[in-house]
């Protein structure tokens, strides 16, 4: 398989994740979409690293995976905190900053 096949697969997964982020009402559902998008970026990084013969992209993937996990832990902590304050995790009702 060529590099293009992997890039196309990552693009499809990215757009599915984007669709989820835009359409989900539940905040946790939105976070799941973000995870999908970040995941597709990792596929791109590893594919480029493999087809250019340079290990740097794979090292970069280790970093992005760690950062993504930190992001997920913090995001879910914020969701739990929001739930404690507002008793809801529906994004439409989390409008504390509405002017």
């Amino acid at each position, binding site marked *: 398989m*060529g590099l293009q096949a992997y890039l196309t697969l990552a693009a499809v997964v990215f757009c599915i994740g984007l*669709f989820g982020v835009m*359409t989900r009402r539940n905040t946790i559902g939105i976070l799941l979409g973000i995870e999908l998008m970040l*995941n597709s970026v990792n596929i791109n990084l590893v594919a480029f690293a493999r*087809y*250019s013969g340079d290990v740097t992209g794979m090292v970069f993937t280790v970093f992005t995976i760690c950062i993504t996990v930190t992001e997920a832990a913090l995001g879910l902590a914020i969701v739990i905190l929001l739930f404690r304050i507002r008793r809801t995790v529906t994004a439409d009702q989390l409008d504390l900053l509405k002017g």
Partner: protein
Amino acid sequence: MSADVLAFWSLAVVLVGSALAVVLTKNLFHAVLWLALALTGTAGVFLLLDAEFLAAVQLLLYAGGIVTIVVFAIVVTERLVGERISQTSRRIGAGAVVAAGLLLMLVRTIAQQRVPDARPEMAADLTRTIGETVLTRFVLPFELLAVLMLAGLMGAIYFARPDD
């Protein structure tokens, strides 16, 4: 059809199918389980790209870690309300149009590029090479990553602390 091509297409079907299930299924808990399948499929793609170490990291951190904390968050937030773990979507049409448009643009751009089809030879022991690169050329980002994870850990504990 060679084994490589067959493996790629079956992984692609699993990955795209489970990703669609993540964003479309009504039950939030099922969506997390589909996400676990999608992340495992990504680990398979990493294996196809000869990155065994990354496949292991993907399974441990992503499929293990993220799924666990998402399930935890669902249990904490949904059970207290006492409702079903269901979720609805809004503006599906607009979302589909934007996502499909972006996909079309990306696929067209990718198709127009001249990218290599052959894989160059890489170090026989990629895991060793990754480890050596992390601890030599990228040692500063590596240490910064440790600080970031510590800050994230402290932030998560601070946010999720019990009321006093």
